[in-house]
């Protein structure tokens, strides 16, 4: 067995921030268990990125290089990493929890008789891996049982990329054997959805509405509050899924990421997919009938109550306070 290995992911020609966070998680594991930490960089042309990774305090950077892993497919990535894992037999394989990793890492783990412990938010002694359950209402603590490589993916923002120490790593190349005929899917180029006419990313004040609003007919009440505050209106995914507000107003992992001075969440329970899109806000206010809603964990101010009473009262109070 050979220590902790972290799989890095290219984002727009660079190593993405969440990959550095995965390195931080890998270093934490390595320090805890006295294991060396390496990094794996899958791609077709990884020289520049590998040299960048080699400036960090990791033992080795492996360029998992093949023309067929240039454009992501689950088949090529699984084959390439499977060959690396079978040769190197890592104790731990750490991934950033991205859409791409979610697409292939569970299959790769299963091929090796393992289970990915996904979306991990903390690593404790043992090691014990913490991940969220029940849409963030509970945490679960997981352990790897039996032998073989333990597969872990870490949640965006859970580990500190700025705590990685610099150093100098050896760079090596591992060339997997992949045939074009083994790749069954044909991915197209990424494209944007509808034209963006609202830039929530630069909004100073946001009123965001969720499932608690119950019906589209109740939206004007929240829009009046937004108007009184001079705020943009935003929403959690179910509101846009229902077509009550356009998808460009969706905040969260699949929508926009915002960091306003005020984020006022109305009837939003605060599942992680939503929280990742707004937790950088300076001041978070939550109005929700459920005192256990995870949104209160990130809120500066909270009101537990019926939003159909609280929101109109707040609209009046805001108007009065602004006079």
């Amino acid at each position, binding site marked *: 067995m050979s220590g902790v290995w972290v799989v890095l992911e290219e984002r727009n020609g660079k190593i993405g921030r969440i990959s550095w966070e995965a390195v931080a998680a890998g270093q934490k594991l390595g320090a805890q268990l006295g294991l060396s930490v390496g990094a794996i960089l899958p791609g077709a042309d990884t020289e520049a990125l590998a040299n960048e990774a080699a400036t960090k305090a990791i033992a080795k950077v492996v360029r998992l290089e093949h023309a067929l892993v240039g454009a992501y497919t*689950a088949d090529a990535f699984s084959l390439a990493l499977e060959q690396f894992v079978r040769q190197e037999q890592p104790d731990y394989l750490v991934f950033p929890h991205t859409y791409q990793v979610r697409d292939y890492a569970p*299959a790769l783990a299963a091929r090796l008789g393992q*289970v990915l412990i996904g979306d991990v938010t903390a690593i404790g002694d043992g090691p014990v891996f913490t991940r969220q359950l029940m849409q963030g209402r509970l945490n679960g603590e997981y352990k790897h049982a039996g032998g073989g490589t333990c597969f872990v993916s870490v949640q965006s923002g859970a580990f500190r990329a700025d705590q990685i120490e610099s150093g100098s790593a050896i760079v090596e190349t591992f060339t997997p054997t992949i045939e074009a005929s083994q790749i069954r899917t044909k991915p197209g180029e990424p494209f944007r959805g509808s034209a963006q006419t609202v830039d929530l990313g630069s909004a100073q004040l946001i009123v965001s509405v969720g499932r608690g609003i119950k019906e589209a007919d109740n939206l004007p009440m929240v829009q009046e509050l937004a108007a009184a505050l001079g705020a943009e209106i935003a929403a959690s995914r179910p509101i846009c899924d229902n077509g009550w507000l356009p998808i460009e107003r969706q905040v969260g992992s*699949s929508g926009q990421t915002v960091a306003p001075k005020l984020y006022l969440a109305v009837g939003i329970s605060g599942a992680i997919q939503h929280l990742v899109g707004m937790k950088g806000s300076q001041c978070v206010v939550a109005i929700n009938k*459920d005192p256990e809603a995870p949104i209160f964990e990130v809120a500066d101010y909270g009101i537990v109550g019926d939003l159909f009473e609280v929101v109109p009262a707040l609209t009046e109070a805001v108007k009065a306070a602004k006079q």
Partner: protein
Amino acid sequence: MKMMVAIKQVPQRDVQVRIDATGKWIEESDLQWALNESDAYALEEALQLKEKHGGEVVVISAGPERVGSTIREALAKGADRAIHVDCDPGNLDVLGVARLLAAAIKSESPDLTLTGLQSDDLGYGQTGVILAELMGLAHATLILHVDKTDQGLMLKRELEEGWFQTIELPLPAVLTIQSGGNKLRYATLMGIKKAKTKEVRRVTAQDLGAPSTPAVTLERIAAPQKQKSTQMLGGSAKEAAAALAEKLKFEARVL
């Protein structure tokens, strides 16, 4: 096109949860149950594909006896028949559950297997991808739209931060469906009546092969620690609203 839809019964949203005596799961006697949301979208996609191209929609669900009510709900919405894999998933990891589902699905040889991208309770988001691996089939995740072509399927896949891509793949295949791609249907009274007479085939974990030892175990569950100290504003709606406006003006200084 013969389609199978793997669905999961999950606790209803926004229910209060209590940790049970084992410390490893929640008190189930407190709960009401529902069809997992993204699985409802997977079922909807299958029903729409059947309306366009013909074929059959078979739902499959793993769990104890209680999942029967969620299976009936899917049948009432229009699935033709169902397979209930009777087991206690509490003793299995996600690979163990997927092995049971894969064994049962293989016996049906469907052209397309669909499931939701993630469950609302455990939230692993892995079952569909592992099913594809175990059945040796191509897969695609986070799918919003499915078109059948002569070669297979043309799909719209969601990426992060408002980006999408198209992806082509051959049949048979496995898809995980993202919510929001279609509008969900409700069961009609006629549908509910018909569902009572539709076939639900029950198979047990023993029927489907030797139990697997978990590779990963859930040791303990706990309430999360708060990341911020939240000022909770009490009183009547009017009092709380007035207090909040005050805080926003003088503490947060955003008014």
